[in-house]
């Protein structure tokens, strides 16, 4: 929808031009920002012209630009030794939105929106990803700590999520995935990922809690239009036990 309070859109091409006045926010694909009224939003700084390479393979793993679209991520031809890669497809398909949205929506935008059901939050939490934040100074935050609540995260005004990093050890791990919603393709009620590590299984739990967790033993279960708290907790516990068996 038209954002009627927005008075200016900036399209920077260099980091120096990334300047945020009061009331300004970074713009990724726009698929969430333009989907609701945004009271108080007076300006947008469009990151899409920054020209960040969407996906960069390094010795340490994979760097995903915040502006990488879901369609670009899906289309990436991952090396066969990246056994965790099916999780990408599973998480992108967990998005409530359709493939038409994938053409615009970005990995960083999904995480910065910080909805409990954020499918890219689930992916990056599941793969122990970290977030590189441009600010003064720059900083790196584990994605599990990046999202702090329903629609809240660690970004300060003026900071920008630059990229996400997935370590090679995660990409070459074995993974498991479970998800349930109140309807076959509905918004996530709970999403549980599992990943093999030298120290045992690492779980990622999103969707049913206001922020990501690694264990079902937490007090963040909530009730909304996408499921009751008790059901979300029970389904998560069921999935953890199923995945434990599956990856044993």
């Amino acid at each position, binding site marked *: 929808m038209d954002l009627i309070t927005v008075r200016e859109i900036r399209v920077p091409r260099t980091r120096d031009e990334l300047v945020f006045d009061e009331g300004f926010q970074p713009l990724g694909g726009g698929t969430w920002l333009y989907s609701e009224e945004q009271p108080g939003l007076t300006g947008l700084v469009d990151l899409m012209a920054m020209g960040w390479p969407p996906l960069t393979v390094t010795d340490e793993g994979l760097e995903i630009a915040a502006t990488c679209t879901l369609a670009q991520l899906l289309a990436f031809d991952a090396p066969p030794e990246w056994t965790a890669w099916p999780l990408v497809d599973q998480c992108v398909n967990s998005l409530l939105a*359709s493939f038409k949205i994938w053409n615009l929506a970005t990995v960083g935008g999904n995480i910065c929106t910080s909805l409990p059901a954020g499918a890219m939050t689930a992916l990056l939490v599941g793969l122990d990803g970290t977030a590189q934040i441009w600010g003064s100074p720059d900083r790196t935050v584990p994605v599990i700590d990046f999202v702090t609540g329903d629609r809240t995260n660690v970004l300060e005004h003026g900071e920008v999520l630059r990229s996400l990093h997935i370590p090679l050890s995660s990409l070459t791990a074995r993974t498991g995935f479970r998800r349930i919603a109140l309807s076959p393709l509905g918004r996530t009620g709970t999403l549980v990922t599992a990943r093999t590590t030298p120290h045992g299984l690492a779980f990622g739990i999103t969707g049913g809690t206001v922020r990501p967790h690694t264990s079902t033993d937490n007090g963040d279960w909530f009730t909304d239009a996408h499921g009751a708290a008790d059901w979300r907790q029970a389904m998560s516990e069921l999935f953890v036990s199923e995945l434990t068996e599956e990856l044993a």
Partner: protein
Amino acid sequence: MRFTVDGTPVEATPRPGQVLRSLLRENDHFAVKKGCDAGDCGACSVIVDGEPVHSCIYPAHRLEGVAVTTAAGLGSVEHPHPVQQAFVDAAGFQCGFCTAGMVVTASTLSPGDDLAVKLKGNLCRCTGYRSIEDAICGVVNTSASSEAGASSKAPAGMRVVTGSEPYTLDLATTSLLHLAVLGSPHSHARIQSISVERALGLEGVHAVLTHLDSPDVLFSTARHELRTDDPDDTRVLDPVLRFQGQRVAAVVADSVAIAELALDLIDVEYEILPAVFDPEQARSAGAPLVHGDKGPESRIDEPQRNVLAQLHGEMGSVAEGLAAADAVVTGTWTTQRVSHVALETHATRGWLDEHGGLVLRTSSQVPYLVRDELAHIFSLDPARMRVFTARVGGGFGGKQEILTEDLVTLAVLKTGRAVQYEFTREDEFTIAPTRHPSRVTVTLGATADGVLTAMQVDELLDTGAYGNHGIGVMFHGVGESLSVYRCANKRVDAESVYTNNLPSGAFRGYGLGQVIFAVESAMDDLARELGIDPFELRRRNVIVPGDPIVVTEADEEHDLLYGSYGLDQCLSLVQEALVPTDGPVGWVTGQGMALAMIASMPPRGHFAETVITVADDGYFDLRVGTAEFGNGTTTVHAQLAATALGVPADRIRILQSDTATGTYDTGAFGSAGVVVAGKAVFAAATALAEKIAASGSLVGLSATGRHDGTPRSIAFNVHGFSVAVNPATGEVRILQSVQAADAGTVMNPEQLRGQIEGGTAQAIGSALYEQLTLDEGRVTTRALRNYHVPQFADVPRTTVLFADTHDDLGPLGAKSMSEAPYNPVAPALANAIRDALGVRPRDLPMSRDRLWRLASS
């Protein structure tokens, strides 16, 4: 910036924050629809440089140099894209408002694509998706014949699929003003003071309307043939606010954005009043009164008890009937608030004609009734008013209301300018009336051989802050749901109660679905208790020709007749079709059925006049008053006229739903489009054929047909399900879905199949998924992403079977079949889930979390 739309260069300067959808429509590209404006529904889908996107969330500042393709760019009426041709041939649409976006999306698919996944971003509220799948797979469901009884194509089909059929707002109007509404932040309050000076000072604002501008006339947003059927409890703008979101004031400005920005500049002081949200509390002593200020002229039954309407009636003695019973079952069931989610939101554009007469182009099921009530409210001469609809993008009862027309009238009269008021999707969820939430207690008694000895029903409806349809919905709800059963002892207690929740209104089935859910669930319990097959239990108790059709009063209905009877066939058709099916490992399976009866048209008069004229160009001009909103009546009217005249349907030109044609019609509700207006059409066309035969010439001939909506017949539906349920998660998988319908002689089998599939899909939404929730009067489900209407993935194929009957009353033996298919679905599904789980679900929706809890208990 420059870009192209459908190959044509466009030069535009988008506003900061503007999206592609609104920019396209501002440039008169009306193939792009607004269904949600939030990226959820897909009605605005376009292709940008080869990639399909939702234009309502596509930032317009990125358009430099791109090529945009809309449905109109894919093909035209003369040269359609193959996908567009396929949608016409498959009858892959009903109202067609989603179709342009659906066609755009479909044009980007590849063979082998999983349609459930690929179409999850394209919502259709009418069809149930089977015909859309057929279209994409190249299945042809229509025939070239235009005889009644053939699966003729909808006359507007090719325009719908190419995006060229104009809907309500699909026309250019110069110097149009826009209206935005300030909604009440309180559930119950009185406006102490209101100052509009700051708002008026904003550049581009032309007027601010408050209760001081409103006519002091009480009316009802609900519309019926008799205006006294509904309570006069509403003002255009009222100093007392009775639900959150109720109009406080309206701004008329150069743009929607300016009007909305001006809302923040209206200064209001409220006196907050106590509010009540639970209908049981509302009718209890000491509750805050919602309409305590109203007198007898408002026709509210007991305003001092918040009771809008009540019915307490008994036939025979339920106490004696229960005493004589070998088995007694009892239970309480609840149904939730449901939103219609017609893809086209409510909208009206109004202006003054060259003689100063008021003209309204509106998304309504009842243009004549809207005209007459506006004349009443504003003291206007109906002869100097014109109210008309273009093709309406879905209704389901939600547009049998005045929700936008009155404010537009006030704004046009105040400013003298053309003014538009368009609901947002959030408005649809927060201020448009919903289905009535209900609580129904049923007690049944029967002998050991399964003969009913007593039926008792106690219903409580939450009609919300304004009464509108709350009287009719209550009376109708306890009507055919009970009169379908032959039982000497029946008792009904029903009350429709005001609260400070948003108003409830007319919704497909008009109250029947709520009561049928409870009664048919109780009948299922009774069958279990007695060890009698549920089909057989129905056979032993349903009325058959010769039985009186009564709820509790022997003479309550004077004109309801057995024009035909196919309930026995429907029961057998479904019973024979249902076969036991295995579910996944670890899941439990079950079967269930339910029946529903409905009168073929509304009571107390439904009038239609039609005129058919031989035009100079050799066509036949058929003027009808009723509206097309996806019900397919236009197709059937063309078939009826063509059949009577012995000409192809493409020789019939239909001019409809416009008070300027002068052919009155009560409106498109109560499933009256075929049996009332259609009967009038057939009478007119038959009379014209006789005149042609008598005169041997065509020149200047014309004939009129009328129908007054009485006597009425009865129609039947039986639904059966086979399901699997996962007790560990609450998931339900529908393994088989069968519905048999007794619609008399079927006028258009493909369209009727579509109505039944669409009603089934909408009812599956109500049964499993949809729920509009409120928290202390505030709606919390305010967008489609938080209110789950069925997607392609959610709707199973339903086998549709027709009883072989011929109705003595309907046109060519036809009966109505628009609302009815919805009614048996939820109880049939609940009965199947009960059969599988061994525990009965009593509350809608039967969501996964609830069923999991039920299975775990």
